């Protein structure tokens, strides 16, 4: 019950002791309600699942070097890509930034001692673990072969694999998302520090707000549709089964009504992170703050109205296709605006090239490529030609994996000193960032090409004319894997032997930098008061005339 009442004003005797020193036992971690420790728990769990999902697709990519396959059966291949999809979407990408950086930083950025419901926060992690346990069971007991999309009637009547445990795992982890979303919404509404008005919120907080809205509204629909699939499969209740008069397209509508917004669940937080990083490393106010906020909310809202673009060839009406095509073009506008604004943020800055900035620039590149290829797919005729081919695979990996993981890594490096109190090795981090960008493009640019040429997705065996592209892509995947593994080593090294980090190593303006590194349990020794806009890296409209650092004005500090 220690945190039940959430003293907003930390007790006067709050010691300057780091949250990491509040207990060193396993129990102290597993029963913690400190948002920072829960963030660490999440970070460890999603990292484990990221690498499980990565191994699954690594094996599949290795198999694809040969058009006739060489060490997997078709059933094994189908299980590998399904596992990859389920794990990466629900056990890595969806929770990635919100549950780690969101949990850790959201309260700090608004000057709060914790989230609004600390125990709900811990519960959400346990829900994640419960869902993950089902998924691990699926892996051990032979896998599932429906693809991450669970389309009936294949999933409900024809598949001979563990559909129900897989669906239950995703069902449960969905509630973890909902809990996080509710928590963040309440936190942002209720716990902002004095002076932290809505238009003083850092863009990361706005992105957490937008993503929470989407999580809370969309995830229940996923839960519903997976429940219906399980009920149909287990009890034989006719819901989607056409032989009993059911409609398999209904499932696709329900599924994409969640899963399209889910793409925004992955990318909105990424936008928030890079906004912080661009401002801090260009020493500039984010260009067009108001437009950036508006764009985030526009994307969150319009993102709910475009699910039908996943179904242009599914058998929905031509009129529906046109409407969804139109809305898909519309939802691309705010994303384009954000790209222009990030670029313009560099203008007249003092641009530094530390690792977070390189990752953020990688995000910008991949997000632009992914976004522009989204325009191709929003056009009905091109979508008809390229959907269910590698073009779509490349498109959504570029935007939601390339974008989100680049941004995730940018955030990890940017806030690493704050979270751990240690500096990482700059050279290795820069090297990993560049390697990741190159590896990513080598993996997915060939996939764009072979997709347009006609290579369908989810193919174990394929016409040999596409082999050269598959080999290039697999080679890229090797580089990418190296880029993903490197941080494990140099970041671990930094925890053990890294230089001690000062409270504000980047001279950044956010509230989270106005306290110790690592922060004490109540985040701030005294409650902060906010008296400035975010990103005041320079006086409005100008930066220092002559080179060197402009003087940054922090958003506020302990009063």
């Amino acid at each position, binding site marked *: 019950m220690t945190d039940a009442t959430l003293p907003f004003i930390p007790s006067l005797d709050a010691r300057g002791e780091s949250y990491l020193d509040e207990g060193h036992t396993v129990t102290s971690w597993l029963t913690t309600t400190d948002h920072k420790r829960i963030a660490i728990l999440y970070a460890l769990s999603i990292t484990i699942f990221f690498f499980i999902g990565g191994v699954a697709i690594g094996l599949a990519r290795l198999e694809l070097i040969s058009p006739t396959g060489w060490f997997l059966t*078709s059933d094994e291949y189908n299980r590998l890509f399904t596992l990859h999809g389920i794990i990466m979407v629900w056990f890595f990408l969806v929770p990635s930034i919100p549950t780690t950086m969101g949990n850790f930083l959201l309260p700090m950025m608004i000057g709060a001692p914790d989230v609004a419901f600390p125990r709900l926060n811990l519960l959400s992690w346990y829900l994640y673990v419960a869902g993950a346990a089902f998924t691990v069971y699926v892996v051990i007991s032979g896998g599932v072969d429906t693809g991450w999309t669970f389309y009936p*009637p294949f999933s409900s009547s024809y598949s001979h694999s563990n559909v129900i445990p897989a669906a239950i795992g995703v069902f449960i982890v969905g509630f973890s998302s909902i809990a996080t979303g509710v928590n963040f919404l309440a936190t942002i509404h209720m716990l902002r520090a004095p002076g932290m008005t809505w238009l003083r919120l850092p863009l990361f907080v706005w992105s957490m707000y937008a993503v929470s809205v989407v999580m809370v509204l969309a995830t229940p629909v996923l839960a519903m549709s997976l429940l219906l699939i399980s009920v149909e499969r287990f009890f034989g209740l006719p819901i989607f089964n056409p032989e009993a008069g059911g409609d398999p397209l209904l499932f696709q509508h329900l599924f994409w009504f969640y899963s399209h917004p889910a793409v925004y669940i992955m990318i909105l937080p990424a936008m928030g992170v890079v906004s912080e990083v661009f401002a801090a490393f260009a020493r500039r106010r984010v260009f067009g703050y108001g437009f950036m906020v508006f764009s985030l909310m526009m994307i969150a809202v319009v993102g709910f109205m475009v699910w039908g673009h996943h179904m242009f060839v599914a058998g929905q009406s031509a009129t529906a296709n046109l409407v969804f095509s139109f809305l898909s073009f519309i939802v691309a506008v705010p994303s384009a*605006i954000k790209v222009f604004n990030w670029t313009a943020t560099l203008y007249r800055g*003092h641009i530094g090239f530390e690792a977070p900035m390189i990752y953020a620039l990688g995000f910008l590149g991949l997000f632009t490529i992914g976004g522009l290829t989204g325009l*191709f797919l929003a056009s009905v005729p091109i979508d008809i030609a390229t959907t*269910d081919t590698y073009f779509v695979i490349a498109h959504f990996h570029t935007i939601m994996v390339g974008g989100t993981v680049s941004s995730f890594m940018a955030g990890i490096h940017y806030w690493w000193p704050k979270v751990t109190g240690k500096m990482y090795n700059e050279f290795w981090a820069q090297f990993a960032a560049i390697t990741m960008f190159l590896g990513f493009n080598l993996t997915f640019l060939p996939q764009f090409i072979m997709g347009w040429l006609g290579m*369908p997705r989810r193919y174990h065996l394929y*016409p040999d004319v596409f082999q050269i592209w598959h080999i290039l892509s697999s080679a890229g995947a090797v580089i990418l894997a190296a880029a993903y593994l490197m941080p494990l080593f140099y970041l671990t090294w930094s925890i053990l032997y890294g230089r001690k980090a000062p409270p504000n190593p980047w001279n950044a303006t956010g509230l989270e930098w106005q306290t110790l590194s690592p922060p004490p349990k109540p985040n701030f020794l005294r409650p902060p008061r906010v008296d400035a806009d975010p990103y005041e890296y320079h006086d409005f409209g100008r930066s220092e005339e*002559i080179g060197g650092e402009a003087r940054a004005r922090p958003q506020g500090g302990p009063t």
Partner: protein
Amino acid sequence: MSLDQFTTAASDYAVKVDHLFYLISVLSGLIVALITGLIVVFFALYYRGSRRPRGEVPERKTHEIEIGWTVATVFSFLFFFWWAASDQITALVPPKDALEIHVIAKQWMWRIQHPSGAREINELHVPADTDVRLVMTSQDVIHDLYVPALRLKQDVLPDRYTYLWFEPNRTGIFHFTCAEFCGTDHSVMAGRLVIASPQDYARWVSAQPQGDDLAHQGATLFRSLGCSGCHTPDSTIHAPDLHGLYGRPVQLADGRTITADEAYLRDCILLPGKNRVAGFPPLMPDFSGTVDEGQVVELIAYLKSLSTDQNDTTQGAAR
């Protein structure tokens, strides 16, 4: 296998899709070049430590820039939409008097039925310069007929008809395949699209093992299943007359009006309770489980022939 079997644009529509693709590619390339260029210039001028003066950007100007590129983006996206949609709208209207070929998908093969009665598996012969309309259904899970050379793709659903139409403008052998994940052997559920000249197509059809055409096969079924017992004008049992039914609007018992297309006829045979016709008692037996997809196709072909060719096949059935 050569790449031409995938990349050749084998219809005018496919050429249009390619043009749209190139248009968006070029414009996307320009946008990427613009952003990359700006970033490189900003790096060169404003890297940390550069001595370049950083002057003022007035707030008003900031807003003008912001609104400027917002509007530019909106208009260029609307232009893309207009271009793509106009391509699509012209392709929306199914051609009249198209050659109708039935496609039945099942794990993991394609069965094709030509109107002449000719059947093939994993191979689809069509005449060039002719409107072809595929009427497709699946016997099990969702499949998807994907013909890269036509830039076309359509999901094939169980218990429902979906359609694809195209007019091939060249002869040759192309690839088609399944694009919706359908289980173990999804990746080998492929076949050849053979576009022949109309003469060669006719020759190919006549060289097939001769049987009755689809409509005649349907007429035989219509009798053997006992349909003709009720659905004749002089029957004692009150059942709708099926002459000229296809393509006509039908008034249903629940007040809806529905056009009697393939899907409607199919539902009437397999799910008679779904769309009951106004003015008739619910006596129609349920034929699901009795007839397979191929036989439904034959029955429908027969019913359609009742609307087009009154003299020939009708008599065969009425007796």
